[in-house]
């Protein structure tokens, strides 16, 4: 078992002829992901690493009705259109890698997907990997190995860092999901966490949060209210970040006094989540928790 990406995942790459799109198409295929088609308007008929390219999601879906997932690499100013197109074509999971999408566009796509009961992962996410099964994303495969820890994160490289430690500790990951670094995201911590709770392959969950917003606080609230009991560990980045400054991610900003590291740590600990101050402490603690 795994979440979001599993054996049935069939992938469409939107923006497949771009530098990033083509590069990661190759890496996804190399990892064993079933990439069945790509789209770049005006480039229909080409083939990228053996994957046929179409002019529209409509014609791609028409030829490959098995597509259920799309990964979006198109530039920020075209992402609104690309995601609306994927949703209209009936695609269930849309992973939006693109960084720098205007907030108003994000609000539109994210709310639309929710009202249609579809899933957007991201925007500004490294994607999703279910080690050994497939990846719909851009993360370096070598940091991951098949295992029992579910990871949900707002970050990219920090996630690879922690995942690698977990891999080296021999535990591995069931699935790793980047919810994205923007202020507004399709999936949030709560929703991915719920998926992990319901996934029997996941024995423990690691939350990788950061300052800004209240996604971690809402997760804490959910854990408290629902009383779920899967071991949950967290690392929150940004303890030393000053207020009012964006720390790389559009969403990583303490504004109006909200979204501080301290507030997140308190909320999570209050909900029974172990919060660690160094990334490498997570894998050790996991070993204790899982192997007793």
């Amino acid at each position, binding site marked *: 078992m795994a979440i979001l990406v599993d054996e049935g995942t069939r992938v469409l790459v939107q923006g497949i002829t771009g530098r990033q799109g083509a590069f990661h198409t190759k890496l996804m295929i190399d990892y064993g992901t079933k990439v069945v088609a790509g789209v770049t308007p005006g480039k229909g008929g080409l083939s990228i690493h053996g994957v046929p390219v179409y002019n529209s999601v409509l014609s791609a879906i028409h030829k490959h009705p098995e597509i259920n997932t799309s990964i979006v690499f198109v530039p920020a100013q075209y992402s609104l259109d690309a995601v609306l197109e994927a949703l209209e074509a009936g695609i269930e999971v849309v992973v939006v890698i693109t960084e720098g999408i205007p907030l108003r566009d994000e609000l539109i796509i994210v709310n639309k997907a929710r009202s249609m009961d579809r899933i957007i992962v991201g925007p500004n996410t490294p994607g999703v990997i279910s080690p050994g099964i497939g990846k719909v994303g851009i993360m370096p495969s070598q940091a991951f190995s098949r295992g029992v820890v579910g990871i949900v994160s707002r970050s990219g490289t920090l996630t690879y860092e922690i995942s690698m430690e977990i891999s080296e500790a021999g535990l591995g990951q069931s699935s790793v999901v980047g919810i994205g670094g923007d202020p507004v995201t399709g999936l949030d911590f709560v929703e991915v966490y719920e998926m992990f709770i319901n996934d029997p392959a996941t024995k423990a969950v690691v939350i990788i949060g950061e300052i800004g917003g209240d996604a971690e606080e809402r997760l804490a609230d959910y854990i408290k209210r629902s009383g779920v009991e899967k071991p949950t560990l967290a690392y929150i*980045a940004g303890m030393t970040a000053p207020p009012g400054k964006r*720390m790389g991610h559009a969403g990583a900003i303490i504004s109006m006094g909200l979204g501080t590291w301290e507030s997140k740590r308190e909320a999570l600990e209050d909900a029974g989540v172990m919060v660690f101050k160094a990334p490498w402490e997570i894998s050790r603690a996991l070993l204790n928790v899982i192997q007793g």
Partner: protein
Amino acid sequence: MKLYEYEAKEIVSRYGVKVPRGFLATSINGVREAVEKLGGEVVLKSQVLAGRRGISGGIRFAKTLKEAEETSSELLKMRISGKEVKQLLVEERVCVDKELYLALTIDRSKRAFAILASTLGGVEVEELVRRHPDALIKITVDPIVGPAPFTSRWLTEFYNLSKDLEHQVMKIVDSMWRVAVEYDAELVEFNPLALSCSGELIALDAKIIIDDNSLYRHGRLIDKVYRDLSDAEAIAKRHGLSYVELSGNIGIICNGAGLTMATMDLVKTYGGEPANFLDIGGGASSEQVKEGLKLLLTNPRVKVVLVNVFGGITKCDEVAEGLISAVSEVGSVKPIVVRLIGTNDSIGRRILMEKGVKAFSSLREAVAVAVELARRDPWRS
């Protein structure tokens, strides 16, 4: 991107929000002209893109022309949160009955714009949110309709204003929404929004923050992005690097926002003080790495640089090349602690080793060494 108060006021007044009469001045002469045009008592407001202008003494009243001249000559020599005061907004002083807080911003959890209002106007919003949450109300804005009429009914009731002000409230809220939509603003804030003695709602202060990601569709604004950046910030931005200055002495370069923050935090946890946040992003070129490192090497406050790269799209050999060329260009002798792991890390380490730099693979070791180096007395080491 933050707009200056006078810019924000110019925009919102075009959308029908009342603001005090005022003129921008960059010199004592300018102030004199403005005071003469306005007549009577004036407010002198330092135009800097920093909060806490009031507390810092950047906003002053003057009853006479002489007083205005004296005060503005003081202000034009001031620095507020490190920023020079180069421009003053000279405004008529408004007789105020009541000060309110009103903002339009993003409610992340509802994934929507929301109106935020408080009866405690003029108070820093951070304090409002943390200390007086009961004096706050939040009203979601429907993205198709904009603020519905009930919004002004609610606000008028909540502010405890008389019912005949409902129309004015509606107009203001509607203007805020149109500004937010047309300028892709992520914040439009009036603090305080004043009820004047003559019964008008007037925005005494106005703040607009534009969503940086939307700037490509706002041609006229995009040029303004660099104007308030420090030299280092401007260089970073031009090279596609995310850079934030902090007050410590350990320079930090990493790839990825989360990893960069985590590295800063670890430095602090190990007893050091980060000098900056510098994220080279994903798939950075050696050129970008070089420019990033140069920024830190040329910053006199930086004593040690800690480089932490987890290669994925980013290639460790590219990083190593960039580091080497920065050092040789600047001719710096500052110690650089490097941790490289991931894509092409062995090549990267070899490149560094050739120049006598040892790269760690353990993050913990790298942090510990960097902190230790920063702690040494420079006259002794």
